[in-house]
């Protein structure tokens, strides 16, 4: 690995400090977390302003109107029709005034009209048509009992998927009280739902643990950089970064051990 310059090391130290500050939230809300939280809110909001300006407005609006002149309101631009969204955008700003705020409803109405119209056929296709199509599936009757223990390709598994879908759909009926036969089917539906939820919860644990492992690795690399540099200044900063949290942690433990036992009502 290349030797790291002291300047870069300071930035890395900041990153490590903020990482630990964010982790401190797990203990309780504290000034370090508050600092990290408020900092990241401001910085990320600013980041999006810049990204949306440079990568959004500029290519999608300014560049398209840039062959026009501002004093002609860009009407002489080759793609003058892009003034329309700009005007709509400016209409959003009427919300700064209490009296004219209603004008902002126009762009909002357009926005929502376009979005809902877009959603109807697409969602119908993706969520209803396609799912219905794949539910109608030929079962492999020749392999109904499958090979070995719980075979998901076996006929019975495929049949169970089909019945499970139907039962779970029954569970979602709103216009019928869950009674009688209906109750039985809906009950089976909710069982299927719960087993599915449990399985997908359990399955996600692995990915979440690896997120934490990645953070450990970052801190490990940071420590390695500091120790391997052989530079006193590097080590000092490393000590400060970890030291703050180590000292506070010890203080909390001492407090916890010496606390007066109060009986909670």
């Amino acid at each position, binding site marked *: 690995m290349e030797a790291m310059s002291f300047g870069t090391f300071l930035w890395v130290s900041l990153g490590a400090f903020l990482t630990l500050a*964010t982790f401190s939230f797990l203990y*309780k*809300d504290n000034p370090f*977390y*508050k600092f*990290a*939280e*408020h900092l*990241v*809110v*401001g*910085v*990320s*909001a600013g*980041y*999006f302003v810049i990204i949306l300006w440079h990568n959004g407005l500029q290519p999608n609006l300014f560049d398209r109107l840039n062959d026009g002149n501002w004093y002609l309101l860009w009407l002489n631009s080759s793609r003058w029709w892009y003034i329309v969204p700009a005007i709509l955008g400016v209409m*959003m700003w009427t*919300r700064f005034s209490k009296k004219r705020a209603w004008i902002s*409803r126009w762009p*909002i109405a357009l*926005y*929502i009209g*376009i*979005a*809902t119209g*877009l*959603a*109807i*056929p697409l*969602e*119908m*296709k993706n969520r*209803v*048509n*396609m799912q*219905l*199509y794949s*539910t*109608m*599936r*030929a*079962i492999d009757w020749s392999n109904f009992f499958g090979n070995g223990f719980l075979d998901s390709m076996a006929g019975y598994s495929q049949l169970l998927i*089909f019945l499970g*879908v*139907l039962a779970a*759909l*029954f569970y*979602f*009926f*709103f*216009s*019928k009280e*869950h009674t009688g036969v209906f109750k039985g089917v809906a009950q089976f539906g909710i069982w299927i*739902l719960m087993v*599915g*939820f*449990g399985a*997908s*919860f359990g399955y*996600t644990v692995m990915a979440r643990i690896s997120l934490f492992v990645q953070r450990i690795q970052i801190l490990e690399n940071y420590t390695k950089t500091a120790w391997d540099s052989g530079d006193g200044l590097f080590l000092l900063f490393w000590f400060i970064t970890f030291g703050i949290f180590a000292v506070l942690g010890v203080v909390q433990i001492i407090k916890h051990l010496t606390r007066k036992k109060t009986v909670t009502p």
Partner: protein
Amino acid sequence: MKHKLLIGCCLLLLPLLAPAWAQEAPVADTTTDSTAAMQAPAPVTDLTARDKENDHGHGIVLEWTPSVDDDGGLNNVFGYVIQRAESPDGPFEERGRVPIGAGGYDDIGSKERESDGFMPDYVDYYYLVRTLTVDEAVYTDSDIIGPVQSYGQWFNTGRIPVLFFVIGFMILTMYFITKARGGAKLFVRRLAGIEAVDEAIGRATEMGKPILYVLGLGTASDIATIASFTILGRVAKKVAEYQTGLIVPCYDPIVMTVAQETVRTSYMDAGRPDSYSDDMVYFVTQSQFAYVAAVNGTMLRELPATNIYMGKFFAESLILAETGALAGSIQISGTDEIAQIPFFVVACDYTLIGEELYAASAYLGREPVLLGSLKAQDYAKAAVIILAVIGFITINFDWGGFKQLFQVLD
């Protein structure tokens, strides 16, 4: 029969073409020894070219019968090159390559005039398919086919099933809404998660603590967020009536704008316009985990009596719900993001699963007209179940025709 004749004709033509190859590409083999005595393969036959249907133009579909030497015969075919020219005399340029066994190719160009790959509509094109062997210099060209033009269509026939579904559902919805307007009583069973919303507001009033309403990470173009606005309206009205606090941190500026309008209206409806302030509904940031950090902080500092999460949620669902539980709040959630439902089910007191979120927006409003659409949803669901059963039975009796009715081609 026809194929064989064609192949026979082509084979007869081969000797005539042979000198042309020799000029065009001298058989010089420097790299390999195994391919030195490579014989030219038979050309592809039955080559057809037509405009690609159901598209915006700029696309031509080619189909052919693979060479007889492809997986059989001389067995020396390596792939095919599709070549195109604007006149039958050339020059031909390569448009794409496909491996052995392929019997078709979609020549799709760009519709952007400025782009390099621009392929204009209503222009005559001529195609030929070259059968390649592993030896670059040994190949056979098919007959040239053309002229063929590409153009755009005005109706996508591949999407007819979707059209039927959309129209059918529209009719159903309108029918029930008209029926509801006419005063018909529509029964809807109670949903625990929705009734909990009312209870939770009452609890907040008793405790004198605010309610935190999170609209999720959706934008105003997500229907889940739009449904959430209706629920927010309902919650805000109750909150205004009971004079409890309301906190709505927002992730998207347009969502913030709409939410402000919704909450303000609810306060006016409750007869307390003066209690409303724009600071109840505020913007945080458009970055997922920075937003979560801020909402987490708010939960632990304001200790809301109730947290309501309705809308689109992603990985942050569990971070929010667990922090809320730590703060001792009652939590009600609803999302249509399937991957997140398990986490809400585990960590919240009440969860509206999937479509219950949409039902809630109709249910909470308690307006008969809104309930009408809920009925339409139920009938559509029944239709889906019936169609699925019919489709399932027919396909298992080896009749796939019914299933094909529902296939959407894109």
